């Protein structure tokens, strides 16, 4: 069956290269004391980030679920942007807001106390550097995801229950206890664990904002082992540790909670009666405002910084844009197809296989593939294939969470009818699956396109010098003192990523076929 084949292909794609690295290294090497410190820090920051993202997402999701206001859809869409933002761009935006010279500190600076004896004014200031900065950045990235997942839980509570509760005279507290808490208890473990898994492989965020060697993650240890020590045995071992951690988290998530995905969601009309009371209304408004500011200000900062740089961009940016678009669109087609095949296979371990790429270290994966390909072909000839494959694998965990529940829903509702009519293969796909799944597929395609657009995606070992991608070009410009041009290209990247996301997402919402 196509689904099982796809699941096997994914596991093969992840494990065989790792095996190749072990083979080349002649076995594994035990991680040293510093590596274990890195493992501890990685777990700790991922746990904090996951819990913080999830807890903050609860009131935001509740506010979004039960309030109606003009521009709600646009707000939700915009609030999702950080998740699809390239790390490097997001960090720039975060620093522009929370950095030492950022907006927040500028505002705090306005409230300086008069100078004491030494003549320097005393100012309050916040620092983004340190563990809290890492967590802040991870919350920035993952809050949108968490909100969407939890919102889905809220929308899954049948409207009749809220009506019944209102009919029985239940106050907001009772509704919380009777309806919302059981839903949260079922949903939150899954949310915590997926954010945890995402944060486990953090590299640039943890290092740039971490403030020093305390903030060493496993991914950095792998990088160091591979690049600066050329210790393949240790790199492979660390990669294995990382894989086990994420797989463990994934298994826990499957056990502990309903892991239905974040669905196309948001389109379902829910007649949830907004609870009365000015205090509650104000509370909801406050949560939504804070979340919107938290997520949108850094994006605004990226935009402002980039505007003046647009004119400075060298012509190569356009070639890179073309390359990135081509990769993003091909990766989208492939990822959605693979996810659909997996989703229609309907098996638990298939779900887990789709999650596994979260754990893969791109460096070790790339090295393994290089070791496999190099003896038989020129790696550069395989650059496109490898880049695509890596992008597909990296987007799959997210896409699968969207497509899987939707596919199950279609099969549950219409599977028997289709079976009784003998709709199989292409006929079933064309006349049932695709039209019924337009929305989730559109959403999934938008997410994949944006993620592949923003992914550095290129494994240095396979990089084709003439086929630079846009994120790589941003990075190259930054590395050549051309900060303005880099900011311009980063803005271009932001606009294109988000634009692709919107086009696919909205396309999925278009009229159904007749």
């Amino acid at each position: 069956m196509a689904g099982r084949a796809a699941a096997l292909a994914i596991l093969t794609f992840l494990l065989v290269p790792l095996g190749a690295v072990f083979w080349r290294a002649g076995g594994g090497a035990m991680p040293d004391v510093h590596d274990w410190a890195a493992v501890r820090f990685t777990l700790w920051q991922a746990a904090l980030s996951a819990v913080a993202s999830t807890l903050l997402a609860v009131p935001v999701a509740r506010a979004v679920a039960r309030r109606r206001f003009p521009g709600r859809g646009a707000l939700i869409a915009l609030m999702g942007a950080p998740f699809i933002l390239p790390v490097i761009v997001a960090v720039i935006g975060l620093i522009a807001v929370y950095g030492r010279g950022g907006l927040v500190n500028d505002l705090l600076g306005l409230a300086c106390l008069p100078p004491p004896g030494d003549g320097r004014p005393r100012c309050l200031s916040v620092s983004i550097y340190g563990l809290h900065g890492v967590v802040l950045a991870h919350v920035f990235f993952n809050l949108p995801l968490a909100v969407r997942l939890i919102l889905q839980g809220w929308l899954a509570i049948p409207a009749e229950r809220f009506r019944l509760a209102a009919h029985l005279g239940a106050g907001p507290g009772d509704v919380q206890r009777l309806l919302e808490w059981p839903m949260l208890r079922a949903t939150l473990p899954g949310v915590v664990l997926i954010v945890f898994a995402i944060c486990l492989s953090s590299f640039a965020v943890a290092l740039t904002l971490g403030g020093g060697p305390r903030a060493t993650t496993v991914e950095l240890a792998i990088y160091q082992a591979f690049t600066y020590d050329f210790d393949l045995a240790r790199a492979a071992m660390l990669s294995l540790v990382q894989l086990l951690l994420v797989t463990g988290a994934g298994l826990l998530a499957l056990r502990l909670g309903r892991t239905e995905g974040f669905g196309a969601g948001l389109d379902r009309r829910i007649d949830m009666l907004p609870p009365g009371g000015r205090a509650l209304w104000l509370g909801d408004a406050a949560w939504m405002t804070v979340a919107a500011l938290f997520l949108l200000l850094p994006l605004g900062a990226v935009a402002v910084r980039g505007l003046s740089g647009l004119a400075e961009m060298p012509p190569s940016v356009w070639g890179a844009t073309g390359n990135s678009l081509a990769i993003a669109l091909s990766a989208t087609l492939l990822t959605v197809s693979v996810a659909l095949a997996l989703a229609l296979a309907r098996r638990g371990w298939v779900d887990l296989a789709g999650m596994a790429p979260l754990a893969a270290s791109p460096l070790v994966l790339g090295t393994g593939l290089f070791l496999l390909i190099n003896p038989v072909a020129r790696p550069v000839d395989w650059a496109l294939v490898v880049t695509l494959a890596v992008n597909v694998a990296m987007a799959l965990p997210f896409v699968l969470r969207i497509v899987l529940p939707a596919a199950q829903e279609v099969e549950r509702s219409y599977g028997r009818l289709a079976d009784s009519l003998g709709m199989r293969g292409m006929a079933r796909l064309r006349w049932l699956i695709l039209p019924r799944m337009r929305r989730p597929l559109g959403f999934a395609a938008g997410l994949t396109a944006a993620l592949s657009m923003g992914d550095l995606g290129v494994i240095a070992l396979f990089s084709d010098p003439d086929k630079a991608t846009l994120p790589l070009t941003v990075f190259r410009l930054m590395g050549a003192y051309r900060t303005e041009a880099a900011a311009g290209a980063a803005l271009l990247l932001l606009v294109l990523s988000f634009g692709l996301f919107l086009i696919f997402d909205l396309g999925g919402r278009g009229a159904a076929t007749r």
Partner: protein
Amino acid sequence: MLQLDDLRLRQGDFRLTANWTLAEGDRLALIGPSGAGKSTLLAAIAGFLRPDSGALRWNGADLTAEPPARRPVAMLFQDQNLFPHLSILRNVGLGIRPDLRLNAAQRAQALAALERVGLGGMAERLPGSLSGGQQSRAALARVLVQDRPLLLLDEPFSALGPALRAEMLDLVTALLDETGGTLIMVSHAPEDARRIGGLLSLVDEGHAAAPVPGGEAFANPSPGLRRYLG
């Protein structure tokens, strides 16, 4: 002839047995309390549930291992009998070719079926824009073009009002009169069983009783049927 040959069904803890035959052209109503297994029996005949043991035959041919679409069966479910994203014409067309590659004659056949059930001129409408009764008619039009000798109804009209339900059952009997098809329907309502004027089988306590003529059964109910009718 439909033959339920010492059929034993199991779904989790639930068990059901049936051992009887039904002649071609017969109309059978399965009645019994909720959860007694009426739909389960129908699902087994349609091919959605593999029997634990026993066999299912149609005119002597063993159906037990056949997939749903290869059985001589057309079926209407409790709900979701139409694909809401496809026009009425396409929904009917699926009964002719599941890949919808209809030639002119097949298209005409589908249109004629729609005409027959009183939906002429509505071919291009989406199911959502039709009333409940019209949706049921559209589903019946598909049954017509499917042209299968055995029709299974799993309470497809239960959401309709009494008058509309009666109208649909009349339409079903009229269609069966034309095609000479065999009918098995699940029903809660004894009046539905009377309306189709055929056989009756009580499904209760893990057993689907052999069909008996409906008039007789109601005039002279068995203890089980009496309990059910209250």
